[in-house]
C-alpha cells in the first residue's frame, strides 16, 4: 500500500483551524493521530521535517495525501466534518464538458472541476503530483481504470470536448518533449506512450480532450499537452479532469482532488459532463458529485460486533467525529460517508470506523471463555515422535527451504527423466535456484553435507518436513506429504550403519518393515532397498551413489534413508 512523503509544517498548517491544533506537533502525538488513518510512520527527517508515512487501507485513497491525513485528524478534533458546498448536487455548474459518441468503447467516463484562489508553491506542486500519481497508479491500477490531468485554467476555453480521433489527426507538444507530435508518434516514441499505450486496446481511434478553440488538453490516459497541461509554482487557477473506465472510481478520484484543493484554500467550481447516452447517474452529471447513500444500521448490531454497550448518542458522536453524516432514529443510525469516500461495502466497515473514531484503547479486552480442547494433527504427532527418536539416535536436525532447483532435486540425484525426478515446477520463474518444490528430503540434507566438509565428522543429519509429489490423479496435481530424511557421512560409513538407525526408528514407531532390493539411480546398485510396510513402499534406503556425491562435490561416503511419514501413518 502507498507510502507517501509529506512535510510536518505542511501537515501542521492544514491542521490549524478554529479549534486550532496546529504548531509543534510531537512525534508521539503524530503516531497517536496516525491510528485514525491506519498510517505508520516509516521515516522522519527532523532537519527538513520530511515524514514518510505508509497508508495501509487500500480502500481509502482519500487518505493517501497530506490533505487527507490532516482532514481525518481535524474532523476528530472538531467533532464533525465541515461540509463542502460544491458537493451539493443542486446549483447549476458554470462549465461544460461534452462526451462524444464512441467513447463508451474506449474510456467512457470523465469528471472535472476548476479550482481558483490557491497559489501553487514548489512544495505544494510536489504534493499535488504525488496525490495524482498514487491515485492513478494504485487506486487507478496503473492508469487503467483512472488517470488524472491538471491544467492552467486561464488557457482553457469552455466547453471542452472528450472524443475519439484518428491517430494522425491531432498533434500537440506533449509534456517532456520539445516538438509537436501526433498521437501515434506519442504512442511510439514518448516514454509515457510506451509505458501506458497498452491500455488503449484499439489504436485506430484514440481519445482526446480539446477545448472550445480546438486546442488539445490531453491524450488520456497517456500525456498532457505542454502548453496547457503544465502547472508551475505560482499558478493559482487550475483545471482538473479524471478519465477512466469505472464511473464511481472516476468521480471518487475527482472528489478527493477537489476536497484536497479546497482544504488548501481553493474555491471549487463544478463542471457538468454531458454524455451521449444515459449513465447510471443520468445523461448529465455534475462533478464533483456526492455518491453517498445512507446506510441504516441497528445500534444493537454495532454493539454486538464491538462487544460493548454504547447507545445511540455515543455511536452518533463517534461516526460524526469520523466524518459521517448521521441521524439517529429508533435504535438505528442512518449514516452517510463523506463524498471523498466510497468504501462502505458492509455494516462492519461502519463498525470499524466507530471503533477507530473512539480509539481502540477505549475497548477493554475480554478473554473468550468458551472451552476448547487443543491438539496436534496425527501427522504432526508422528513427525514429532520420529524427530525425538532421530535425536536420540544421535542425529542433528536440519531445516531447509522447500523451493529449490531442478539441479538439486533431480539432476544431481541422477533422477533426470525418471518418475522419481518429477517435481512441481513454477511457471513465473524469477531465479532457477527457486523454481521447483522438493519431492523428497535427501537433497536438502546433501545441501548441508556439501557445504559442511569442514565440520568435524561423523555427520548424522535428519529433517522431517513437507514435500510436494506430482500426482495427476490429485485435484491439485500434487500431494503434499511429510517426509523424514536422514543421512550419515564419515570415512567408513556403510549400509548397515543407516540400516541400524532405520531399524531402531521403526521398532519404536511400532511399524513392522522389510527391505526389498531395488535399483534407484541415486544409490549404489546392490546397496539400495525399498522400505516396505504391509507390502506397501514407504521409502528408500541405501548407499548414495558416488556419482551423486561427485555432482554435489561431496568427498565423503554417505548412506541415507527417506521415509514418507504420511504414507507410513496409514499403514502397519
Amino acid at each position, binding site marked *: *500500500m502507498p507510502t507517501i512523503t509529506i512535510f510536518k509544517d505542511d501537515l501542521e498548517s492544514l491542521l490549524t483551524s478554529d479549534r486550532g491544533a496546529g504548531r509543534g506537533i510531537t512525534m508521539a502525538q503524530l503516531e497517536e493521530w496516525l*491510528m485514525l488513518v491506519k498510517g505508520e510512520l516509516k521515516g522522519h527527517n527532523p532537519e527538513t521535517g520530511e515524514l514518510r508515512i505508509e497508508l495501509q487501507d*487500500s480502500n481509502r485513497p482519500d487518505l493517501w495525501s497530506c490533505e487527507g491525513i490532516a482532514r481525518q485528524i481535524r474532523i476528530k478534533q472538531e467533532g464533525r466534518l465541515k461540509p463542502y458546498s460544491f458537493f451539493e448536487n443542486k446549483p447549476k455548474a458554470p462549465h461544460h464538458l461534452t462526451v462524444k459518441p464512441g467513447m463508451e468503447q474506449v474510456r467512457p467516463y470523465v469528471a472535472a472541476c476548476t479550482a481558483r484562489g490557491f497559489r501553487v508553491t514548489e512544495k505544494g506542486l510536489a504534493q499535488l503530483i504525488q496525490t495524482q500519481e498514487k491515485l492513478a497508479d494504485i487506486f487507478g491500477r496503473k492508469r487503467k481504470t483512472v488517470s488524472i490531468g491538471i491544467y492552467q485554467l486561464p488557457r482553457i476555453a469552455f466547453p471542452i470536448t472528450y472524443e475519439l480521433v484518428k491517430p494522425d489527426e491531432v498533434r500537440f507538444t506533449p509534456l517532456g518533449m520539445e516538438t509537436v507530435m501526433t498521437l501515434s508518434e506519442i504512442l511510439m516514441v514518448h516514454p509515457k506512450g510506451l509505458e501506458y499505450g497498452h491500455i488503449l486496446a484499439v489504436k485506430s481511434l484514440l481519445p482526446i480532450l480539446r477545448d472550445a478553440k480546438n486546442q488539445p488538453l490531453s491524450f488520456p490516459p497517456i500525456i498532457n499537452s505542454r502548453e496547457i497541461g503544465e502547472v508551475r509554482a505560482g499558478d493559482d487557477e487550475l483545471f482538473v479532469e479524471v478519465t477512466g473506465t469505472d464511473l464511481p472510481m472516476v468521480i471518487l478520484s475527482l472528489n478527493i482532488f477537489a476536497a484536497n484543493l479546497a482544504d488548501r484554500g481553493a474555491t471549487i467550481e463544478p463542471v457538468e459532463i454531458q454524455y451521449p447516452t444515459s449513465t447510471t447517474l443520468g445523461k448529465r452529471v455534475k462533478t464533483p458529485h456526492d455518491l453517498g447513500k445512507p446506510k441504516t444500521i441497528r445500534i444493537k448490531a454495532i454493539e*454486538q*460486533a*464491538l*462487544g460493548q454497550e454504547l447507545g445511540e448518542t455515543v455511536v452518533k458522536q463517534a461516526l460524526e467525529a469520523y466524518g459521517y453524516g448521521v441521524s439517529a432514529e429508533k435504535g438505528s443510525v442512518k449514516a452517510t460517508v463523506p463524498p471523498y469516500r466510497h468504501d462502505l*461495502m*458492509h455494516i*462492519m466497515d461502519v*463498525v*470499524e470506523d466507530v*471503533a*477507530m473514531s473512539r480509539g*481502540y*484503547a477505549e*475497548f477493554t*479486552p*475480554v*478473554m*473468550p*471463555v*468458551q*472451552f*476448547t*480442547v*487443543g*491438539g496436534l*494433527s496425527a501427522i*504432526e504427532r508422528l513427525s514429532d515422535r520420529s524427530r525425538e527418536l532421530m*535425536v536420540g539416535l*544421535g*542425529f*542433528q*536436525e*536440519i*531445516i531447509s*527451504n*522447500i523451493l529449490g532447483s531442478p539441479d538439486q532435486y533431480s539432476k544431481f540425484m541422477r533422477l533426470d527423466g525418471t518418475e522419481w525426478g518429477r517435481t*512441481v*515446477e*513454477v*511457471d*513465473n520463474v*524469477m531465479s532457477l535456484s527457486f523454481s521447483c*518444490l522438493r519431492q523428497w528430503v535427501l537433497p536438502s540434507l546433501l*545441501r*548441508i*553435507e556439501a*557445504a559442511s566438509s*569442514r*565440520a*568435524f565428522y561423523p555427520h*548424522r543429519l535428519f*529433517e522431517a518436513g*513437507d514435500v*510436494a509429489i506430482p500426482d495427476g490423479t490429485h*485435484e*491439485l496435481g500434487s500431494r*503434499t506429504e511429510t517426509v523424514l530424511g536422514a543421512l550419515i557421512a564419515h570415512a567408513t560409513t556403510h549400509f548397515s550403519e543407516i540400516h541400524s538407525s532405520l531399524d531402531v526408528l521403526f521398532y519404536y514407531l511400532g511399524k513392522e518393515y522389510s527391505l526389498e532390493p531395488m535399483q534407484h539411480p541415486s544409490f549404489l546398485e546392490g546397496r539400495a532397498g525399498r522400505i516396505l510396510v504391509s507390502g506397501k513402499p514407504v521409502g528408500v534406503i541405501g548407499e548414495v551413489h558416488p556419482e551423486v556425491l561427485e555432482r554435489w562435490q561431496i568427498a565423503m561416503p554417505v548412506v541415507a534413508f527417506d521415509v514418507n511419514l504420511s504414507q507410513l501413518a496409514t499403514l502397519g
Partner: protein
Amino acid sequence: MDIFTVIDSLHPLEIKVLTTLGAAPPGTALSSEQLAAAAELEPSQLSMAVEWLLAKSLIAIQTETVTPIVSLTKIGEEYYLTASPLERVLAAAREATGTGTRLTIPDLQAQGGLDPSDVSKAVGRLKKEGALLIIQGGCIETTGRQSPTAEAIRTLLAEMHDSPKELKSFTGVHRQVIEDFAVKRGNAKEPFRVDERVARSFILSTDGASAAKQLLKQGVAEEVSQVTPDLLKDGSWRQKRFRKYTISLRPPRIGTGKKHPYREFLDTVKTKLVSMGFLEMRGALVETEFWDMDALFMPQFHPARDIHDVYFVKEPSHTTAADEPFLSRVAKVHENGAETGSTGWGYSFDVHRAKRLVLRSQGTAVSARTLAASPNIPGKYFSIARCFRYDQVDATHATDFFQVEGIVLGEDINFRTLLGLLNLFAHEVAQAKEVKFVPAYFPFTEPSVELHVRHPHLGWIELGGAGLFRSEVTLPLGVTVPVIAWGLGLDRMAMVALGVHDIRELFTDNLELIRTTRGLF
C-alpha cells in the same frame, strides 16, 4: 607439597624407578643400565620416568659421562652389502687397465650406481694414496699399489655391521678413516656416524628418599588407567591405584543428536498454542487461487495477486476440483455481495482464474479450508504453514517461510474478545506485559487490528495482525458465527532467540553453525 600428594601424582614408571633406587643402600647411585635392568623397564620408559623425576626433583644426577659411539648409517649398511665407492672405482680402473680400455672420470660418473660427487671424492683419495694415476686426456690408470683407505673401510664396515662400537676402541688409520668418513653437518652421505652416548647415574634426593621409603612401606599398588569389568569381577580393583587425570583440559568435541534451533522455537510456539486450546490444521503447499485468495474476499484485481507477488504452478496449471457450492457462492459475493449484506466488489468474477494453481502465499488459505469443512463451534485452530512469496531474497525476505496463524469461532466472539485473545498471545508467546492495539487493514477482516507489544529484549515490536473475518468470507463458506482470524509474525523473535541477523540463516546450510547455535527461548 606433602609426601602423600607427591606419591599420588606419580606415574607407575616413576614409582618403579623410585622404589628401585630406594631398595639399594642409602646414597647408592645407579646407572641408567642398572636402573633399567633392576626396574625391568625399556630404555624409552626409563628415560621418560627419569626426566619426570628430575623435573620433580625427586632424584638427582650423580655422574654424567659422555662416550662417542660409532655406528653405520643407512649408507654404511648399503656399502657393507655392495662395496664402498673407493673399491668400486678401483675395480673399474683395474679392469680398464687390464683390458687397455680408456677410462675417464666422466665415464665413471656415467656408470650406474654411483653419485658423480662420490666418484670425484673417491678418485681424489685414491690418487693421493698413489693407487691411481691420471694420465693425459683425463684417463685413469691403476698403479698396482693398494689403497689403505679402501681396505680400512671394508674392515670397519664388516666390524660395525649391526654392532656399534666406542670410538676410543679404534686407533691409527681406522680412527682417521672413521673421522674422514663420518656424517657431519653439511655432509649426510657418509657410511659412519659418531653419536655421543651420555651415561648417567642417579641418586635419590631427600624428598625422593622419603617418597621411596613411604612407597616401600605402603607396598606398591599396581596403577591402572581404567576401571575394567575384570577388575570389578574379581574385586582386584582394591589392590589397584587409579592414575589421576588432568581434568582441567578441554574435552574432545562430540557430535550430538539435537533438534534444529528454529524448529525448537516453533515447537515451543506450537506447544503454547495447544496449551491454549488450539487444534492444529494442515494444508497443501500447492493451493488454488480460490482458497488462497478468492475465498478470503481478495478481489481478483487486488495488487497482491499480481504475477509479481505469487508463484504460479506450471503443470497442471488449474485444479480439477469443482469446490462447489463454495466457488459459486464466493463468486456471487465478489460480484454483488449476495446474501452477506455486502455490496461486493462489483466486477465480473473469473471462475477459471479461481482454479489457477499457485504456491500457497498465505497461511490463511488453511483457515479458509477449515471454515468450509464444518469446523467445531466453539473452535480454535492454528497452523504453522510454509508459504511462498515472489520476493527477491535478501536479509529480510526469504522465498519460503513459516506463517503461524489461525482462527477462533464462537458465539461470544466480538471486537473485545478479539483484543482479549491478542492480550493472551502477547503474554504467552512474547512474555510481554505491555500491549498496544493499532488499527490495521487486511482484505479479509473488519475490524482489523495490529498487536504491538513491548518485548522484554526488543522493545516495541509488531507481534501480529488479527481481525474479525468479514461476513463476505464466513457466510459463503457456511459459517454463521463470528470468527477471529489471527496471525503472528515470529521471524524477528526467532532471529533474536537464535542470535542471527539474516532471515536466510534460519535455513542455513552451515552445519557448524547449526551445531553451535543454542536457542534462548
